[in-house]
């Protein structure tokens, strides 16, 4: 007894055992929290590392030439006589389908966002937002199925095109898929414009349309741009829907009714059948690196644009 009291006096700062356990527990849980916090960075780096690692051996292959990889239209990964890895037609496919999708989705997305944010009452607004959210939840393979069955029949009967799975089909499907993200982000951007702007314009006798056109659009233009960029990001990266709806032909499209193949669909179609460790396998991973960098750039730009508004 005496001894214990003594030590207490000598070391008055000693912590009771229970508290010690609590502090240790707290330290542990904080460690876990901090680790989870950095996990996102670890995962992004890991994705890049592993995809790049599998792509790397292709640079030492005889058949590979980076310039041709980027700018040649001939994609013959399994040719018996002359193997060629040119992804240009695939890149053009991705770009054209994204462009078409945005051509449809941007006006409709922005228009819907404006209507939801400025023109309708709170009840209607709530239900529209819920519908948009449910729209965003439809799985891409279901979209692909819709493209393959419903949409392709419609396109054949309306346009008389010989094949229903084509650029137009994929573009419409992708547009419907990226509209929800454009709507929800542009609506946020419009909401972020201070009400005092609207009030000032109203006081000057402006109508709603004039407010939208003269005040809101200029004030929210960065946010709207970011919304479009994120829509682009979604469209470029989409896989299953375009795999099933675009017709999957390696060619540079000359019209809306031509079939195309995209970078993503190409990986999805061929990865399962490329034997591990072959040049073909490594090239597909390199296409993955390309896609990763592309979407990385788009997302980063979108974020900087959004951040630009917050600073202001």
């Amino acid at each position, binding site marked *: 007894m005496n001894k214990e009291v003594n030590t207490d006096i000598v070391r008055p700062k000693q912590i009771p055992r229970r508290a010690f356990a609590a502090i240790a527990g707290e330290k542990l849980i904080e460690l876990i929290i901090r680790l989870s916090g950095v996990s996102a960075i670890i995962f992004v780096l890991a994705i890049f590392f592993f995809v790049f690692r599998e792509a790397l051996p292709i640079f030492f292959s005889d058949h590979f030439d980076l310039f041709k990889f980027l700018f040649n239209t001939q994609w013959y990964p399994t040719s*018996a*006589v002359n193997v060629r890895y040119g992804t240009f037609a695939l890149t053009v496919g991705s770009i054209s389908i994204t462009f078409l999708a945005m051509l449809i989705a941007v006006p409709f997305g922005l228009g819907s966002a404006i209507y939801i944010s400025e023109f309708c009452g709170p009840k209607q607004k709530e239900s529209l937002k819920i519908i948009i959210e449910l729209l965003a939840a439809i799985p891409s393979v279901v979209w692909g199925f819709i493209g393959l069955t419903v949409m392709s029949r419609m396109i054949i009967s309306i346009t008389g095109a010989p094949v*229903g799975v084509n650029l137009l089909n994929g573009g419409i499907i992708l547009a419907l898929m990226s509209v929800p993200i454009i709507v929800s982000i542009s609506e946020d951007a419009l909401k972020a414009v201070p009400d005092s702007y609207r009030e000032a314009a109203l006081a000057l006798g402006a109508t709603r349309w004039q407010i939208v056109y003269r005040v809101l659009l200029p004030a929210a233009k960065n946010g709207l741009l970011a919304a479009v960029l994120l829509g682009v990001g979604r469209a470029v990266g989409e896989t299953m829907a375009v795999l099933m709806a675009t017709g999957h032909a390696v060619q540079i499209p000359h019209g809306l009714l031509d079939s195309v193949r995209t970078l993503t669909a190409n990986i999805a179609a061929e990865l*399962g*059948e490329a*034997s591990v460790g072959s040049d073909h396998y490594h090239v597909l991973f390199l296409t993955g690196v390309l896609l990763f960098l592309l979407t990385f750039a788009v997302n980063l730009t979108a974020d900087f644009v959004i951040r630009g508004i917050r600073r202001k």
Partner: protein
Amino acid sequence: MTGASTQVFNLTIRSAINLVLIALLMFTGCQKKSDEQKEEKQVTTIQVKGSDTLVNVAQAWAEQYKKVAPTVDVEVSGGGSGVGIAALLKGTIDIASASRNMKQEEIEAAKRNTGKDAKNFTIGYDALAVYVHKDNPMNEISLDQLAAIFSEGGETTRWSQLGVTIPGAGEDEIVRVSRQSSSGTYEFFREHVLQNKDFKLGSRDMNGSKEVVELVGNTKTAIGYSGMGYATPSVKKLSISSKAGEPACSPTVENTFSKKYALARSLHIYTMGEPTGAVKQFIDWILSVPGQKILEENGYVPATAAN
């Protein structure tokens, strides 16, 4: 915020955590239980991987074999003949299915990797049929014409060049329907029709044999190739002659079996070394009457058709 409501929330969070834990426990518990059950019954899993042509047959076998031998689970994946054989060489699967013969370097690699010889079982025959839309008046085509349509640098791009007018089709341009570049069917067509030359770019490269036939069935001006088992009422199989003017042969069971039909091929499954136990029983069953009947029902020609 009152203490009571904090408590309510604390209860919520605790019960949520408990729920998750219980769910996990149930999950692992039942997992274990089914483990035990499986051990009692000595369940074995046979993994089959390979040819897309055979994947539907393999699936039908797996389904039926479960009734014959309830303690054997058969797992089926596609991927292509080459992928199946590569996996077999690595020892990750039990049976590789292939719509082509094993290549010399693959046989050597097998010997090197495992010290065993790959054992081949010819389980049936297939004919690669050339499909057109049912309204297409064409009935036969020669291999040269096919090559001119499909190969890189081939001259034929319009039906009129073949002397064909398709009733009710606005366009004249041939819509080529092909397969993605690593499938066994694609390689077979390239070897036997295009003489190993490359395909013309711009063909619609479908992911499945069924998709090819379906697209051809929906497109009046289309031509495509796929296994003979995939025919539907909206398409027509063409007879094939080796040169224009020579007698054409249609993809029927007899012509396939006698190899008179130019695009006939044999279907194989491979194992590493002599199969034993459950795998042997499964293969024996495949080669027996019920197994071969399933193959036939899927539109292929049984290996035992001559007997």
